[in-house]
């Protein structure tokens, strides 16, 4: 992967004055190129031989192609199947990676991810409830919202769990991050148990739907889905750049961040609500895609350091690129069938993560 060699090259040149901001800018520039390449690759690669280049060239030059039927098919595949899928991939990759970085900063732990605060478990519960009970108890919901019932249920499931946790962990206006972490484990277990009951009730067809949803996939991306989750993710993430200075200060501890003039409680609230909205929306349309939220910020911290002013934008770019590459692999490796993307990210991400840890043993202080 190109990103690997970026990480390795950058960590070798440790600036003698300890200022890594120039290197960070350089890496961000490279990641912009990487994302552009990944977008191009995703638009081009696929089970069909539809050529994105041809479609775009025709569109720009206004050429009327000789084989009109073929051109129409290409256009359909590129515009209505691949483009929404690429956009959705970018949105979700950005959301997962940035939210991972923000959670790690907030919990002051490089292993934290949005799953820890129960978002994923709550979203799963919502989604599974719709899959299993959608034709019986929850029929009014599916009738009212149609295809959007599942993403909406997942989104509100995640948000509900997060707000419940936040209420539990907040006493006298101060949120205890440690309490939130521990309560998150308990509530996640409870949500998973409820999900288990639903799975127990499910029939064979529902079980298959469920399993596929949990493995994660960008299949079935439509402009409608992009239009539904896009605004939520974009809105939630626009708050994040304003948190970067505060998150940097938080690395010194909550008390010290407060002494440095950071409104710590507001920072925590904004981060938690933003993360649960963005991750809830992502999980809602794509299911469980693991490892992006942990691996991406971690690799980037080794390359450019933990300064969130650079880490957050770099995570956004690398997260989007990696998810697009993983999705391209998922779409093509067993074509015309498709692997769930969660399998690809886990198979590629887990060994890579272990390798990074072994190489950098000693510097990573867990």
């Amino acid at each position, binding site marked *: 992967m190109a990103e690997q060699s970026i990480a390795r090259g950058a960590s070798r040149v440790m600036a003698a004055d300890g*200022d890594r901001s120039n290197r960070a800018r350089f890496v961000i520039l490279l990641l912009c190129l990487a994302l552009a390449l990944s977008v191009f690759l995703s638009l081009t690669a696929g089970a069909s031989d539809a050529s994105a280049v041809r479609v775009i060239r025709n569109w720009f030059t206004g050429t009327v192609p000789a084989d009109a039927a073929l051109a129409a098919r290409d256009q359909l595949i590129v515009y209505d199947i691949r483009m929404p899928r690429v956009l959705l991939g970018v949105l979700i990759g950005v959301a997962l990676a940035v939210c991972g970085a923000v959670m790690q900063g907030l919990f002051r732990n490089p292993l934290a991810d949005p799953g820890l605060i129960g978002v994923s478990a709550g979203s799963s519960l919502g989604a599974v409830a719709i899959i299993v009970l959608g034709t019986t108890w929850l029929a009014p919901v599916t009738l009212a919202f149609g295809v959007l019932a599942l993403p909406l249920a997942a989104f509100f499931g995640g948000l509900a769990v997060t707000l419940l946790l936040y209420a539990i962990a907040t006493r006298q206006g101060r949120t205890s991050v440690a309490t939130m972490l521990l309560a998150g484990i308990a509530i996640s277990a409870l949500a998973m148990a409820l999900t288990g009951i639903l799975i127990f009730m499910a029939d064979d067809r529902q079980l298959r739907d469920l399993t596929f949803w949990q493995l994660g996939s960008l299949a079935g991306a439509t402009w409608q889905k992009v239009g539904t989750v896009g605004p939520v993710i974009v809105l939630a993430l626009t708050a994040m750049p304003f948190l970067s200075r505060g998150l940097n200060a938080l*690395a010194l501890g909550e008390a010290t961040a407060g*002494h440095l003039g950071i409104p710590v409680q507001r920072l925590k609230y904004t981060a938690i609500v933003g993360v649960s909205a963005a991750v809830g929306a992502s999980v809602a349309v794509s299911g469980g895609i693991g490892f992006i939220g942990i691996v991406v910020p971690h690799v980037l911290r080794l390359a450019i350091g933990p300064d969130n002013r650079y880490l957050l934008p770099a995570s956004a770019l690398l997260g989007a690129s990696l998810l697009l590459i993983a999705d391209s692999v998922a779409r093509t490796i067993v074509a015309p069938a498709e692997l769930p993307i969660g399998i690809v990210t886990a198979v590629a991400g887990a060994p890579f993560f272990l390798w990074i840890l072994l190489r950098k043993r000693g510097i990573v202080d867990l």
Partner: protein
Amino acid sequence: MIEARDISVAVGGKRIVSHVDFAARPGEVSAIVGPNGSGKTTLLKALTGELAYTGTVRLNGRDLVSMKPVEVATLRAVLPQSTALSFPFTVREIVRLGLIGGRSGVLPGEDARLPERALARVDLDGFAGRFYQELSGGEQQRVQLARVLCQVWAPVLEGRPRYLFLDEPVSSLDVKHQLIIMNIARDFARRGGGVVAILHDLNLTAMYADRIFVLHRGELAAAGAPMDVLKDELIERVFDCRLKVGALPEGSVPFVLPQSAA
């Protein structure tokens, strides 16, 4: 001026600090001393607004409760006893964090070079590119002091004095660096700022403090100039240890006092 009236702090239902009056004037080094568990750090945390307290704390005449975090951060900086980091920051990146919320008070263009200057002051020239986690405890403490100095680099800003709160700033330092750090504190006060420091070494305290506050079981046992406070009777009562102020050791036992520094 920092003025605290009738400060009481309870942690987990247990009262740690009871009815303490405290005042730190600009231009002076005020030391808080007392045995372990006497409430020194708890009092400091109340004065900095980190712990909830009853009573009032005024910072340059304004009630601390009514001030925003960023306003407080421009008036005072706080050095905690120790700071553990969760991510691999370089020394320079840590010191730069001091510039986040406060206002250093130097000319706008000079902020960028301030971390190097602050590191030089704490005798860590050339350490900017090292990883914080790879430093020794004493070096880490000095890096944190450099960060704190960046936050309130100018002791007086727009005519208003600013303050340094130091919780055991020299506890893990060798004697040379103890003197360097205490000289920084005294210099900050001489130039119009105020310093509040928790200290354990009574000799250093006598040498550098203009005013001493002695805590004993959460209450103020004595307050005043070192000459008036450091008496045999008080030391025996507070520290539960029979010591004689100013007594030289018998015979040829060597002793080294910071006061002898050239």
